[in-house]
């Protein structure tokens, strides 16, 4: 090297941008190898994190069996949230009638503090369900619908409505899109959130009528040609619905319903929905409205694009539109808007398992937080200790909120920007505020954990390492760990460096690690050695989770 090069070292630069092709494959059923890599890809996309036990379970199956099993959950719907909060005495209407540990969801209560406690209780409960998900797509789909039919608990206010709305999404998560849309339209929580309860013949409120078309059914694509007239006409159809909080349901009042005929635009073939009167008018007109909307070609395409961005990648170019969206939309229409056949076709496809489709998602905050807990088998308390568990779930809720994904409270009715805001999409999750928080979260969970009610949740790296095939070999330990934690592995150079720096304390002899690990297994009471091994494994996983690769799914 010449002297000048020494004095002015050449600056290397990071790659700036990469122009990446989209996969050109289509919906043909994938017939390639269905090995661990494919199973991990499938599970990271359809569940929150890929647990090793789940990977081992699914890798013995065919792609069709695996996807079918994910799409057909056998577990019953979960028990409702319980009262884990404590009343303070000065409330207008304390809910002392509800015993601790029993559910509050059927109890009518107008006290603002109680409702606030119930909304928080609902979120903790929900976080618990995601953490404890069974081997199915149900939680990912429930979250999909929450993002799609987005509502905010802070806006709805009534915790019982929030639970009821959520249950609707959960129950229909793998059902029929049209049926779900129909139910959401008169759901009490939605009637509060988009002002449907104030939509009357004399003072129409267009909020739901607009979002039904713009966000829930037709979207904003170039072929979505509904008009302002259609918004007004839909609003008229939707007039007359009210909520009865004491029975926690909505009802129709014909006297405030607009019974005139509603004229729609050419986008809807100039349909006229006949104005109706009487107690059945509301239901009949809504049915007609949805039949009209769901007759357009655009609805199926729109929801398929939403599903694609949820499960595959955000970039929908002409190739993906032609190879995936259009045929998926056809499947959806052919199956009268049943969701499962679409998911089945997508998740079993060559396109889904295309190399270009793998690793391209940036983990959502829930994916990161829950995925870390699940992949490392973080142990929570038995169900009977709901007090502790709700406290811990609350901690995780606070973290996903810090990272800008407050479950139950997306930013607005459009849902999270990561799933619709071009051109950034997923990249919106990562910014100068949230990326350090992601690292801080994994660091804390690996080093100190979180203590609540005298119990602790922590990532025990050594326990995770024990589940790997050959943790006494430092190379295998690193390779196997990365296989489960990453989608893009590290270079051999970097792996060798990490092995030397972290596992071998700078040594070059692998046997030193092997001896320490074997001693750890044989004599865990050897405190000094156990501390050494646990700290090394801790530092290894901390390092892996701090690298950018960990943010991909």
């Amino acid at each position, binding site marked *: 090297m010449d002297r000048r090069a020494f004095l002015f070292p050449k600056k*290397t630069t990071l*790659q700036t941008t*990469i122009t990446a092709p989209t996969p050109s494959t289509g919906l043909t059923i994938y017939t390639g190898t269905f090995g661990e890599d494919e199973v991990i890809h499938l599970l990271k996309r359809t569940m929150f994190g890929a647990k090793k036990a789940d990977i081992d379970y699914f890798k013995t199956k065919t792609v069709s069996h695996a996807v079918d099993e994910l799409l057909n959950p056998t577990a019953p719907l979960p028990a409702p949230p319980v009262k884990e909060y404590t009343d303070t005495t000065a409330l207008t209407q304390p809910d002392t009638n509800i015993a601790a540990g029993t559910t509050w969801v059927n109890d009518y209560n107008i006290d603002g503090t109680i409702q606030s406690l119930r909304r928080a209780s609902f979120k903790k409960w929900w976080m618990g369900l995601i953490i404890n998900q069974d081997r199915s797509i149900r939680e990912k789909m429930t979250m999909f619908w929450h993002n799609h039919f987005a509502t905010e608990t802070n806006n709805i206010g009534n915790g019982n409505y929030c639970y009821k709305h959520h249950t609707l999404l959960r129950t229909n998560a793998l059902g029929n899109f049209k049926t779900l849309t129909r139910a959401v339209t008169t759901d009490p929580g939605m009637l509060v959130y988009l002002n449907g309860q104030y939509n009357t013949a004399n003072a129409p409120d267009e909020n739901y009528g607009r979002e039904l078309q713009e966000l829930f059914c037709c979207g904003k694509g170039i072929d979505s040609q509904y008009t302002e007239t259609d918004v007004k006409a839909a609003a008229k159809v939707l007039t007359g619905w009210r909520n009865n909080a004491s029975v926690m349901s909505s009802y129709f009042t014909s006297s405030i319903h607009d019974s005139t005929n509603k004229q729609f635009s050419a986008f809807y073939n100039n349909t006229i929905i006949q104005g109706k009167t009487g107690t059945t008018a509301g239901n009949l007109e809504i049915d007609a409205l949805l039949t009209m909307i769901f007759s357009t070609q655009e609805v199926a395409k729109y929801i398929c694009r939403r599903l694609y961005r949820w499960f595959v990648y955000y970039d929908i170019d002409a190739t993906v539109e032609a190879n995936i969206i259009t045929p998926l939309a056809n499947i959806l229409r052919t199956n009268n808007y049943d969701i499962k056949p679409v998911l089945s076709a997508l998740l079993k496809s060559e396109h889904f398992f295309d190399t270009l489709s793998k690793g391209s998602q940036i983990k959502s905050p829930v994916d990161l937080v829950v995925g870390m807990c699940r992949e490392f088998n973080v142990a929570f308390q038995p169900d009977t200790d709901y007090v502790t568990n709700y406290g811990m779930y609350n901690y995780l809720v606070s973290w996903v909120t810090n990272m800008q994904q407050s479950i139950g409270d997306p930013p607005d009715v459009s849902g999270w920007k990561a799933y619709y805001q071009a051109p950034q999409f997923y990249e919106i999750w*990562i910014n100068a505020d949230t990326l350090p928080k992601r690292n801080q979260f994994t660091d804390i969970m690996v080093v100190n954990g979180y203590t609540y009610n005298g119990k602790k949740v922590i990532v025990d790296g050594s326990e995770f390492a024990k589940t790997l095939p050959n943790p006494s070999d430092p190379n295998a330990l690193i390779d196997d760990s990365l296989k489960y934690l990453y989608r893009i592995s590290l270079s051999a150079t*970097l792996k060798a460096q990490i092995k030397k720096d972290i596992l071998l304390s700078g040594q070059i002899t692998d046997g030193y690690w092997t001896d320490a690990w074997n001693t750890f297994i044989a004599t865990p009471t050897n405190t*000094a050695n156990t501390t050494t091994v646990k*700290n090394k494994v801790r530092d290894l996983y901390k390092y892996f989770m701090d690298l950018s690769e960990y943010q991909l799914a």
Partner: protein
Amino acid sequence: MKRSEFLKKSLISSAIIPSFINGFSVKALGADSPLMRALQLPTTETDHVLVIVQLQGGNDGLNMVIPLEYFSNYVNARPNIFIPEDKVLKFNNYDKVGLNPAMTGLQTMFNDGKLKVINSVGYPQPSFSHFRATDIWMTGSDSNNVINTGWAGRYLNYEYPNFPNGYPNSSMRDPLAIQIGSITSLTLQGPAVSMGMSISNPTSFYSLLNSTPDTAPATPAGKELTFIRQMAQQTQAYASVVKSAANAVTKQVIYPTSNSLGDQLKIVARLIKGGLKTRVYMVSYGSFDTHANQVNALDKTTGTHANLLKNVSDALKAFQDDLQYLGIEDRVVGMTFSEFGRRMKSNASGGTDHGAAAPCFVFGKNVLGGVLGDTPNIPANVTVADNLPFQYDFRSIYGTLLSNWLCVDDNSLQQLLLKNYQQLPLVNTASCNKVNPNASGINLITNYPNPFTSSTTIAYTTAGGHTLIQIIDGSGRVITNLVDKEITTAGIYSITFNSGALPAGVYYARLQNMALQQVRTMLKVR
């Protein structure tokens, strides 16, 4: 303006609120107000820097510093690997030991009075395991005691007691400690968090090391990975200060090529000259684990170990020259350590097995040059089981450097080293201006009195929500969860900790309030 004047002037006209820092009552001021800046200064003011050089793998001290005084016993113990007497590098005015012939740079530094050789450094009941011995050296623990904090980490926690809450701030914009390497070592681990930052994180500081991160593939995944890496680079809390410090220095002396220790020290010199106030740097090199063929049979002055020592010597010499060239020689002292020395008697493979005590080097312009201690005496009838006993406890070196170089108040040394150790004549102490302890960062948890004998009152700030105060002992064991409850109203609360029959020593009070955590060091005395 002197710091004391700063405080006086700022206090005029301050409305008094009941908040006391070292007896001064202060009013709430923004972090950038002159008063707060003054109060955020570290506990001790000094521009001294300590560079810790780790020689990984257990360096063979007897072939690095050759015991000329007992040369025949040395040859007898190591017939296949001894360095010939006429090849040993001699010191001016000191003939009892000499250096390995590969270490000409260090010979010059010694003769210039910039190198202190400390013979036979170790500790009682030495461990022969690389991992355990490394942990002992890094934590400063006794052999039979497991500690989870590093000695330099405890020091930095003492100087910057609330890190990372409130950092970087206007008086400490820079990393507290920098490790060149992929992870920060146990040496820099504080009671709650690592006090150091590593700057080979390939996404953040690759350009300093002239290395590149793994190439991202040309796929959608590669596109997203590249985006995240760019964001990681932009958001590293200290990225810009470290980079601007590095960029401020455009000329350095020539360092040896193909010498990773030299590469690391070159960055250290650059960052110090570039203006970082970082107190502690750590670099590492090795492996020195020379079980076999550590010398060339035909020429014992060459071979694996000689190459390693040459790189150490060349790197340290270039670094010292660079410090002089950059005009910062007065501010920097370094030390070397290795987890153990090697066995006195060589093995049949032309190498040496894991041993015990070994020499340490302390280097720098402000070092009191020379050799400290008796020449290690090898028995004439040495056996394979024999190990070199230690003369100096390694924690004496830590304690001396903390006290006489980093100017730590002597009364606080015990809190940092967990015991009292003998101080050694290693560095010129004249430049340590000791000042009173002070506060910095954002105090979320404090205790009074501290040190305490039986009980102490812990004051803590919570933002509301679940709040936990744990009392943790030096080995990381949770003694009790003093507070573990939901707190409705944000504010400052207090609780008394009764230490009962717990032994005297260092305890930590750890505050956890959702995402926030902070640790307070408390000392129980008799």
